[in-house]
C-alpha cells in the first residue's frame, strides 16, 4: 500500500471540490470544508507495477491568503494548484499559496490546473501565458469539472511524480 498526501490549493470558488467530485472516493460531506476547513478524499491511481493512493486534502479556498491554514500541508508530498480560467486573479492566488507551502515545507512536486475550460466564451487566460508556464517545466492542464477533461490525466501525472 503506497499512499501520498496531496494538498489541493486554490482561490475561492475555483472549482477544486467540483473538480474532484466525480473522480475520487469520498466519505466526508462537503460541510467539512466550511467547518473544519478541509475535506479529505482519496484517488487511487493504478500503475502496472503498483497502485498509488493519493490522499487528497481539499483545503477550503480563500482569496485571503492570511487565513490559509498552512499546518494542513504538513507531510504533503505533492500539490494540486487550481486556477479559475475565467478569473486571471486566481492564478496569482494559487501561486502565492504554493510559495507559502514551499517556504514552510520545502519544494514539492505539483500540477497546475486551469479549471472551467468549458467556459470558452469567458476564458481569460491566454495560450501564451500557459505556454510560458509550461516552459518553466510545470505540469499544466486545462480541466473541466463539467466534462472531466484532463482530470484523470492530471492525477495520473501527479501520482507518477510523487511515487518516484
Amino acid at each position, binding site marked *: *500500500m*503506497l*499512499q*501520498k*498526501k496531496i494538498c489541493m490549493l486554490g482561490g475561492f470558488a475555483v472549482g477544486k471540490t467540483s473538480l474532484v467530485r466525480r473522480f475520487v*472516493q*469520498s*466519505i*466526508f460531506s462537503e460541510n*467539512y470544508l466550511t467547518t*473544519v*476547513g*478541509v475535506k*479529505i*478524499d*482519496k484517488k487511487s491511481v493504478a500503475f502496472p507495477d503498483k497502485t498509488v*493512493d493519493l*490522499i487528497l*486534502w481539499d483545503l477550503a479556498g480563500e482569496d485571503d491568503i492570511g487565513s490559509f*491554514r498552512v*499546518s*494542513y500541508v*504538513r*507531510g*504533503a*508530498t505533492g500539490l494540486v494548484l487550481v486556477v479559475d480560467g475565467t478569473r486571471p486573479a486566481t492564478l496569482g492566488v494559487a501561486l502565492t499559496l504554493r510559495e507559502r507551502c514551499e517556504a514552510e515545507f520545502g519544494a514539492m512536486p505539483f500540477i497546475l490546473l486551469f479549471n472551467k475550460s468549458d467556459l470558452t466564451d469567458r476564458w481569460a487566460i491566454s495560450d501564451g501565458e500557459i505556454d510560458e508556464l509550461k516552459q518553466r517545466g510545470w505540469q499544466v492542464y486545462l480541466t473541466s469539472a463539467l466534462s472531466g477533461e484532463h482530470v484523470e490525466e492530471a492525477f495520473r501525472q501527479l501520482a507518477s511524480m510523487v511515487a518516484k
Partner: protein
Amino acid sequence: MVEIARNVDPDNHALYEGVPAADHRLERLRQLLVGVEISELSRVTHLLDEPEQLATAVGNVLPEATARASHAQLGEALAPAVERAAQRSIQKNPNTLTDILYPVFLPAIRKSIGEKIDQTFQSLNESLRHIFTWHGLKWRFEAWRTGTSFSAVVLKHSLIYRVEHVFLISRASGLLIAHVTSQDATSEDPQLISSMLSAIQDFVRDSFNEKENSGLDTIRFGELRLWSEVGQFATLVAVIRGNPPEELHEVIRDVLLRIHQESSRALERFDGDSSQLPGVETQLQTCVELQHMDSKEGFPWLVVTAALLVLTVAGGWFFLSWQAGQRWQTYLSRLATQPGIVVSEQKIRGGQFYIAGLRDPLAVDPQSLLSGTEVDPARVHSNWQFYQSLEPVFVLKRLTASLAPPDSVRLSVANGRIVAEGEATTTWINRARAAAQQLSAGGPVFDISGVRDVSAEERWQAYVSRLETQPGIVVADQNVRDGQFYITGLRDPLAADPQSLLAETQVDPSRVHASWQFYQSLEPQFVMKRLTASLTPPDSVRLSVVDDRIVAAGEATTAWIIRARVAAQQLSAGGPVFDISGVRDVSPEERWQAYVSRLETQPGIIVAQQNVRDGQFYITGLRDPLAADPQSLLSGTEVDPARVHASWQFYQSLEPVFVLKRLTASLYPPDTVRLSIVNGRIVAEGEAPDTWIDRARAAARQLSAGGPEFDISKVRDVSPDARAAEHWQYYVSRLEAQPGIIVAQQTERGGHFYISGLRDPLAADPQALLSGTGVDPARVHSQWQFYQSLDPKFVVKRLTASLSPPKTIRLSIIQGRIVVVGEASAGWISRAQAAAEQLSADGVVLDVSQLRELNLAELNQLREAIQTTDIFFSSGRVVPGPEQTPVLDRLADQLKEFAENARKAGVTARFMLTGHSDTTGRETANASISAARAETVRALLNKRGVAPELLLVRGAGTFEPAVPENSQTGSSTNRRVSITVNLE
C-alpha cells in the same frame, strides 16, 4: 635520498645509518625536492603536538564528523560517556537536568495524574451506582469469593467495551501506517479516516492555539469513543465501543511505545509506503483483542443455589433440635431450683421429653413452669409423685395452714429455722408447741420462743377500764377465776350497753359473767333525758343543760308548771338543779282569747259569739267556704280541742277578695283578661270576646246589691273578625304612609280584604309590607297599577338612573326642590336642563342653576395634540417602521391621559384610528392595507396600555388623502393612520 628516506620514516634511519648526515648538498637537494612538504609536515606535527591547537582543529570538524558517523556506532560509543555525564550532572546539581526536562515531563505527569483521577472517579461512580442493587449484592459476594475489592468487581462488570479499530497514523503526513479491526467491526475507508482524524487534530490545535504536543485525547460520540495516544512519530487511535476502563489508556500507550521502540527509524522515514513497516499490525492486533464482555455463564449459580438450599434445610434442622435441647435444659434447671420439686429421671427420645420425680403439693406446678421456656408442652411427658417436703418454706406453709396463727403472730424462715414472733393466747401457744415437737423428727426447728403469751386476762382488763370511763356505768367489782370473768355494777338504762361494748373486744363473751343493777344516774344529761321523757314539755318549752343545771324556759300551762316543780323537788336530793323559773304560766283562757282574736282577723270568718263556761269554750259565727278552716287554726294554740265547741254557719262573704275568688271560679276569664282589686273595687282589664263580656256584665249586676263593684269597662270586646279588621286597618294605614304608594280603594267583605291603587316601581313592595301586620296574606287581594311618583325622592332616583350624573355632581332635595350642584360637561348640563324642563310640566322643580361647566381647556389642548398625530408607514407595509416607535409611545401616553381626564369629567372618550394608503396599487388592496394599518396601530397602542374598548378602527383606503397625490411612487405622507377623538 637516504636523508629523505630517513626523515620520512624513522625506521629508515637505522637502515641508512652509514650515510653521512651533514652533507649540505643533500640538504640542498632535500630543500629543493621536498621543502614544501617538510614545512607542511612540521606545521601538522606542531598542530598535533599542541593540545590547544588540536582541540580547536577537532572542534571545527566534530559536528560534521558526528553527522557523518554511522549512527549505531556513534550512539554506542557515546552512550557510556553521555550516561556518565548525565550522572555527574545530577550529582552536581539535580536542578539543571530537572529544569531541562521539566517541559518534557510536566505534560506527561499532568496527563498521568489526570488519568489516575479519572480512574478513581470512574471506580467511585460505578461503586456508588451499584451499591444497593441486586447486582451489587451479587458482586459483593464475588468480591468476597475472589478476595478482590468491591470497586474492582464493579468496574469489571460495568465496564463492557470492545476495541473495534486501531489506527496507526503518521504524525507528519496524517497518512495511515497500519489499521486493524476487530472481527465484525466495519468502517469506512481507513485511509480517509486517519487523514481526517489528523486534520481534525490539526484543526483543534490551530483553533485553540494549543502548543502542546498531545493533540486530541478523547473524542466521544454516543457509545463510540476515540482514544488517541500521540507518540513521537505516530499517533495511535483506538476506536472503542462501550465503557472502557481508564487503564486501557496505559495499554494503548504501551503498544505505541513498543512500536516506536521497534520501528523508530521506519516510522520517522515513513513516506506512505506501509510495506516498510511489517509487523506493526501484529502489535496493533493486541489492542483490538482488548475487550470485556459480561459473561453470562461464569458462575454456577444453579449449583450454588441448590447447595445453599440443602445446607439451609440441614442447618435449620440441626439448629432447631439444638435449640429444643437447649430449651429443655433451661426448663430442667428451672425445675431443679424450685423448692419442693425433685427430678429423679429425665431423657429425650425421638424429639419427646420424659421426666419423672417427686413434688410437694405446695410446690409450683411443673406444668406451669413450662410456659416461658418455649418447650412444646405436648412433647413433655411427666410422671410426678406427691410427697411432703421438709424444706422450711413448705413446712411453714403447712404450719400456717394447720395452726392458723392469729394476726398478732408472724411466722418466718430464718437460717433454715421457722420462727414465730408476736403475741398469742396461751391455747395457741400450746398448739404451736405441740406442732414444734412433732416437727423435731427430721424437720426444721420451729422456734416459738418469740411469741408472747397474751392471755385473755389482759384483754379483760382493757374491757373493764373501758367500762369504767362510760357515763352511766359504775363498775362495783370484777375478778378472773378459772378463766372465767366476773363483773358486777350499776348501769343507767340510758347508758351504753356493756354487752355491746364486749363484742368490740377479743374477750370471749361466754366466759363473761356480768351482774348489772339498774340505777338512775344523776348526771345532768341523763336527768334531762328522763325529765324530757316524763314531763313531755309542750313545744313552747325548751330544756337545756347550763353549768350542770337543767334549765327550762318558755311558756306552759299552770298544770305543766306544777308537774315540773314536783320533779324539781324530787331531784333536789343529790341530783342536779332543775330551774323552771324561766317558764311563764299561761292559762287556758288566755290562750283561748288569743285563738278567738286570731279568728276575728281572718277574712271570711265572722265570730258572732264566744264564751268560757266550766272550762269549756263555746264559739258561734259565720264562715265563708273559701276562708281558712277555724279547726285547723286551733292546732298550735295549746287550747285543748276537746274543750272547744264551735258552731259555724256558712255564708258568702262580700269582701272583694272573696268576691274576686268566686268570680274567677264562676266566670273563667280568658288569659287575655286580668282581674284585680283596686280600692275595694274589682277591676277587669284586657280583651275578651263579647260573650264573655256579657257574662261578666251579668255577674257585675248580681254583685251590685251590697257587694263590691265589678268594673268591666276596661275589657275590650275582641272577636276574631274584629281583630282581623283592626289588623287590616293598620296595614292600610301603613301603606298610605309609604311614599310612592297611593291607595285608591279598600274594602272588607266576607273575611276577605280587597285593595287597589297605584305604586311607583321604586317604592316599597306592598306585599312585603304585609309581614308583621298579622293580616293573613291569603285573604288579601291587591290590585296595583304602576305609576311614576312625583315625590322628589323618586324623581331623584329616576334622574340618577337616566342621567347617570358624573362623580362631580351631587343631587339633593331641599324643601321639596331637587337641586343639582357640581361641575359637568356641557353635554351633560344640557341633558339635565332638558330633564328640568320636562319635570317642570309635572310641577317638580329641578334646580340646575348651580351647575357649572367643566373646564375642558386642558382636555381640548390634549385632544388637539392627539388629532394632529399621524403614524406613517413604508410603501406596502402595514407595520410602522422603528422610527415610529417614539411617536407611538407618546401617542399612547396622551390617549391614556385623555381617557382618564374624560372619565373624571363624566364622559367617555373614544378614539377612532383611521388607516390610509397611497394611490399606488389596486383600490381593494389599498382598502385592506389601510384597515390593516389601523388594526396594527390599535394592537401597538393596546400593547402600550391603552384599553382596547376605547379604540375604534376603520380603513379609509385612498379616499381621505392628507395631500393630493401626483407622483407615481405614491405619497409617504398619505400612508398613515390618523386619530380622531370622540366624547360620549
